[in-house]
């Protein structure tokens, strides 16, 4: 009995297609590698001595030991260790800002799409308004008002980057709310809350995942620019601060701080770019 061929769910199907794309899987491992380094740096297992002078100022890169791999900075500190600490900052900015913006985007989008009417109008007005302020101006304004530091960057990126997600989720909720499975749930007495979060949300959640990789990437890029403008990280190394330092060092022929930070950022952004594309292709059934 019941000898149906076993079908794949959206997630299994997506995972299956993603796994076929070997390059995307490789890019995913690169991101995992960065995350691992960030965690190790956070708990102090690696590069915890970035603040110590290990040699003369501006020693060029050498292969004699890991510490000197990317040379030293103006205070004789290891640039390689600073790049690792910068990874920690970049990853935490991506993660925390996503943790702030995803709940905002999902809730507003869901509520607007589900209830429609004046609720929808208010939410749409709200995100049109926020998105009318150019992102960079809003970021500058928020970090400027909240004061310098990592916390302001988290908040600024978190409260500015939910709009795209809210738009998509709203559109999906409008499509889904009159589907049969939702009507069935309603006839069984499901509450609004249960319909939104238990029934519809799991069916549109893949858009959150797709959004996550894009958001992670733009957060990393924005952190660099904000730190570079002096509005970001203070008192600890970040890629943006390192690139900012390099502005003055280049004229003296010191290129390794720039090269280290740029390369570190390049590979993770590239990996996120490629992985994000494959993720979209794999999870968005429309583009088959």
């Amino acid at each position, binding site marked *: 009995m019941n000898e149906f061929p076993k079908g794949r769910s959206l997630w299994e199907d997506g995972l299956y297609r993603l796994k076929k794309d070997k390059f995307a899987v490789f890019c995913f491992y690169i991101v995992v590698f960065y995350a691992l380094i960030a965690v190790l740096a956070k708990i102090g297992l690696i590069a915890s001595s970035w603040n110590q002078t290990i040699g003369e100022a501006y020693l060029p890169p050498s292969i004699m030991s890991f510490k000197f791999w990317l040379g030293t900075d103006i205070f004789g500190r290891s640039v390689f260790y600073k790049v690792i600490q910068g990874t920690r900052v970049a990853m935490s900015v991506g993660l925390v800002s996503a943790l702030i913006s995803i709940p905002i985007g999902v809730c507003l989008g869901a509520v607007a799409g589900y209830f429609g009417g004046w609720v929808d109008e208010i939410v749409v*007005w*709200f995100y*049109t*308004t*926020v998105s*009318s*302020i*150019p992102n*960079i*101006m*809003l970021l*500058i*304004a*928020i970090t*400027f*008002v*909240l004061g310098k530091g990592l916390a302001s960057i988290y908040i600024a990126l978190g409260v500015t980057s939910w709009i795209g997600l809210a738009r998509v989720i709203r559109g999906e909720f409008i499509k889904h709310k009159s589907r049969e499975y939702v009507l069935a749930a309603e006839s069984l007495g499901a509450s609004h809350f249960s319909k939104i979060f238990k029934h519809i949300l799991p069916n549109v959640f893949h858009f959150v995942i797709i959004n996550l990789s894009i958001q992670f990437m733009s957060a990393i*890029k924005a952190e*660099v*620019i904000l730190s*570079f*403008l*002096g*509005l970001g990280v203070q008192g600890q190394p970040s*890629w*943006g601060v390192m*690139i900012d330092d*390099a*502005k003055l060092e*280049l*004229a003296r022929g010191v*290129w390794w701080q*720039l090269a280290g930070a*740029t390369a570190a*950022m*390049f590979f993770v*952004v*590239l990996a996120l*770019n*490629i992985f994000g*594309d494959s993720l979209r292709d794999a999870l968005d059934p429309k583009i088959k």
Partner: protein
Amino acid sequence: MWTYLVRKMISTIPIILGVALIIFVLFNMIGGDPTYQMLGKHANPKLIAELRHEYGFDKPKYLQFVNYLKQIVTFDYGRSYATKQKISSMIFNGVEPTLSVAVPAFIITTLMAITMGLIVAYFRGTWIDRIVVIFCVIGMSVPSLAYILFGQYFLAYKVGLFPISGYESVLPNRIEFVLMPILIWFSVSLGYDVRFFRTAILEETNQDYVRTARAKGLSETKVLFKHILKNSMVPIVTNVVIEIPLLILGSFLLESFFGIPGLGSITIDAVHNSDFPVIKAMATIVSILYIFGNVATDIIYVFMDPRVSLK
């Protein structure tokens, strides 16, 4: 058509009010009292009270908001804390330098990107397509600061192809100063644009009318340049028009690196000097321009796409 236009203009009012409210809440409520920052260690209660009065911080919040709305309408944003100049004239003076980089860079990049998007769409699925897409993604992943530093250090300082930084208000001499920023702008945005235009064009290739055109025996070139290009112009133009008001922002980083006294430099200087009113004015003006850019896109839509109704 006119009623549509008027309706569109009226629909911007709640959004402009919303933008004003957000900026006001940010700067005048969350941001607290900027007088302490301005006076620094010279602060004493008497000076603070005077300054608060001068800038109107002692008034109730709703009056401050009304005052700010008045500033928006009259385009009089008061004076900068740092330079004591009138903000409106600072901004007027910044527009020309910004645009002399942004406009040529934008035009060159857009034309080049559309051309490449078409070429790539023509060769879709072949190795040419793959290579261009790979280069686009690589180009997108290089931080824009790296382009700037590389250009300034290597091309300007080492090789001496361009001046390292500076600006000249006399036109023929200005060209040599804006060339390098234009080139960098081009390199930074080409990857994004080509990829976007390629997607926009390729999305059209799966439409029914394309199959019909092929079925009636049109050559691939004719299908691409006559049928597909015309239809993909809708998303392309939308994307282009919506970016035009943002040109006024120029590139913050480019301007400050190459010493171009445009709006980007003004904003970055304001950030460094904690110059509240200038940042507030810039945020307001650019947002309003952006809102009108959106309206312009909607109107162009009506002309370009007969499926869009005026209702």
